[in-house]
């Protein structure tokens, strides 16, 4: 039996794998795609660390900015740990060869890394590699994993966690290529499965696959989730395609303007405030644009080459000469799997969670740009170490095959039953419901409507199925399983949003426009024993 099964092969999973292996653990990284396909590749702007390479900065300022942006919902000890670990995390990334952008300051090591301004930051703190920071970190981590001979199992879709006496024993997977249902036994499991932003189908910067598979699996296995209602809307996605334009565009000096060409908000405020300001302009019938023309073509190509390309390709706009039409869309899920100080899942011993899927309570009600790449690397390492500590003393007696049999039967049913209702239109409908009614500005009446619609959809789900009955390489089946997970999580988000009669960070509710001290707490959800046994 392997020591640690890491589910998810993005930046968090790869970092955890490297640190666990270094600690002496046997590790397998399993994912539904290939390692470099993950959401981490889409992170653009940077990774925060108070290095002070460009002007004065201190770890204490990084901590203070993060706490301020979290609006009372972070755990200050976790924030302190993440921010204090940041400089060493960057030094480690520097040692494995991440090709950061550089200053000409004649310093060596991490001292020469360029740092840029991001929203809500009191210093130029985000280390970057042009606007490809996530891509370049992810690929360097992957190269390092190959060097360290980490075992990968690609194209395996997580079905369920296996637990016994509230302790994790492994998980079941659908081998996408063969259609086989596999059980993998492990002493510890690390969830690094990403967020659930793709619930907002059509209105998100996220890749198709960010459907909260791991968060849903934890709920089904009896674990807790928390702060599910806190969804970050990124102020600047391209209007027609929802493709992300990095916050660094504003950090480097870009403006937000309305149709009249007027600026209407301090562009460097945290994302929740900027997104709301744009939303209210749009409510007034104004179109909103990002204006980076004054930066000049040379600077744009130097600092934001990817953005320039994406604008030309998807909006037919040359950012050096024209305004970029934008809208705010769902970008990051602050909530997720509820974990303790060791990143162990509350409710499932031996199961750890890290990255966007987890709620380590470092982002609170609103995440700062540049803190997510930091979380996946700083806490990825921590999760790997802690999972190994658990593995050392865990039982090596494997679980029986009950869960595998149950899952095999369920997949078989999907592949044999006649499809009555095509689920794809519902996936789109779910995205619309969420963007319209569980969006940037919320109202209780709309939230209740959304909840009813989602519950109706869950009832209809029993009649939904797949038209493709192929045993092997069945993407139709995977799309459906992802949709089921999204639909399972939908009510947790809405009900938490209904319960939160206040406005805090990314959660803003009409009629309750200020923070309520009595609601300065996490909404934690967990299924009862009867529900998890279903």
């Amino acid at each position, binding site marked *: 039996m392997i020591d640690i099964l890491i589910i998810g092969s993005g930046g968090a999973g790869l970092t955890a794998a490297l640190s666990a292996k270094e600690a002496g653990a046997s590790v397998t990284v399993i994912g539904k*795609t*290939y390692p*470099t*396909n*993950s*959401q981490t*590749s*889409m992170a653009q702007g940077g990774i925060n660390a108070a290095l002070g390479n460009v002007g004065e900065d201190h770890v204490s300022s990084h901590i203070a900015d993060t706490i301020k942006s979290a609006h009372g919902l972070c755990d200050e000890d976790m924030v302190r740990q993440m921010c204090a670990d940041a400089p060493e995390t960057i030094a480690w990334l*520097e*040692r*494995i*060869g991440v*090709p*950061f*952008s*550089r*200053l*000409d300051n*004649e*310093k*060596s*090591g991490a001292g*020469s890394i360029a740092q840029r301004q991001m929203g809500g930051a009191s210093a130029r703190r985000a280390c970057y*590699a*042009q606007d*490809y920071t996530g*891509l*370049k970190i992810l*690929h360097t981590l992957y*190269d*390092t994993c*190959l*060097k360290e001979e980490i075992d990968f199992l*690609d194209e395996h879709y997580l079905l369920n966690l296996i637990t016994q006496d509230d302790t994790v024993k492994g998980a079941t997977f659908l081998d996408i*290529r063969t259609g086989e249902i596999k059980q993998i036994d492990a002493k510890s499991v690390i969830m690094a499965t990403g967020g659930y932003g793709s619930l907002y189908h059509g209105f998100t910067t996220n*890749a*198709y*696959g960010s459907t909260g598979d791991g968060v849903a699996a934890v709920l089904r296995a009896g674990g807790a989730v928390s702060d599910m209602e806190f969804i970050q809307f990124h102020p600047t996605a391209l209007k027609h*395609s*929802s*493709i*992300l334009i990095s916050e660094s565009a504003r950090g480097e000096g870009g403006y937000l303007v309305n149709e009249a060409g007027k600026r209407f908000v301090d562009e460097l405020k945290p994302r929740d405030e900027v997104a709301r300001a744009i939303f209210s302009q749009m409510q007034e019938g104004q179109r909103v644009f990002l204006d980076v023309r004054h930066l000049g073509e040379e600077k744009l190509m130097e600092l934001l080459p*990817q953005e320039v*390309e*994406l604008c030309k*390709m*998807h909006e037919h706009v040359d950012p050096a000469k024209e305004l970029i039409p934008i809208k705010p869309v769902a970008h990051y899920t602050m909530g997720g799997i509820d974990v303790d100080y060791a990143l162990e899942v509350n409710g499932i011993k031996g199961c750890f969670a890290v990255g966007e899927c987890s709620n380590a309570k470092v982002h609170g009600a609103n995440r700062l740009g540049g803190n997510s790449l930091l979380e996946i690397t700083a806490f990825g390492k921590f999760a790997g170490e802690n999972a190994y500590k658990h593995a050392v003393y865990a039982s090596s007696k494997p679980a029986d095959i009950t869960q595998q049999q149950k899952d095999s039967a369920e997949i078989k049913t999907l592949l044999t039953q006649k499809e009555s209702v*095509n689920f*794809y*239109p519902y996936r789109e409908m779910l995205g619309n419901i969420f963007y319209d009614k569980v969006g940037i500005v919320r109202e209780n009446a709309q939230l209740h409507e959304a909840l009813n619609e989602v519950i109706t959809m869950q009832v209809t789900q029993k009649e939904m199925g*797949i*038209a*493709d009955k*192929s045993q*092997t*390489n*069945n*993407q*139709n089946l995977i799309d459906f399983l992802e949709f089921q997970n999204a639909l399972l999580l939908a009510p947790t988000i809405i009900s938490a949003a209904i319960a939160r009669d206040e406005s805090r960070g990314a959660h803003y509710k009409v009629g309750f426009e200020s923070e309520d001290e009595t609601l300065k707490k996490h909404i934690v959800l967990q299924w009862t024993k009867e529900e998890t046994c279903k």
Partner: protein
Amino acid sequence: MQIKILRSETNTHQRYTLPAGEIPLLNALSYIKETQDATLTFSAGCRASVCGTCAVRVNGREELACAYKVKPGDIIEPLQYHPVLRDLKIDKDKAKETLAKSTAWLHDNQEASLTHSDEKLTEKQTDCILCDSCYSACPVYAVNPDFLGPFALTRAYRYSSDKRESDAKTIIDNIQSNGVWDCTLCGECTMACPKGIDPKMDITMLRGSSVQFGYDDPSFSQQSFGTPDFGGGFGFDPNGGF
């Protein structure tokens, strides 16, 4: 508008009809899957040209489906030289093995003082998204399936020229067999790369480094022997004569 897609089950091109208007190929494929034919199989990810998932061939040229705008009559096929798993979905395992074989990573880190111009030296190479377009475009695979290939060699170049690498020789050692000398410098990889990377140039640079480390072009040594008999591992011993 109509496009044709190569279906693996029948090995024929199937015709599909799309509404008129500008549409990225990836959206078109999703539209077909959602509304016309749920069995059509392809890989999709970020929609923003950065996850490397969705490369296919359009009219014989490699394209990222998320970045390519569909034109009437387009013929869509899977990438070449990869086993087809189903329709446009391919198996990248063998292609990915080239990264491990060429040991394209930082072997022995030394602290270095890096500058803006050092960053520029491999900025393009590190834009690689491992979409495998170059691998599909490379004609060497028609004759040598074990060729390390463009993306692995570009990555080997990126690490071997990193000032933080104190052991560039190991990388150079590992890209001799089925590596830099097997490339024909035809430039198809450079044409195919959606990120504007130039593997042909990187391979040329690696040849230069190889010579500096004492290797030479095996095709010259083969020619000098004047024999077509390559039996026994192509008769090239990189350490021969040293």
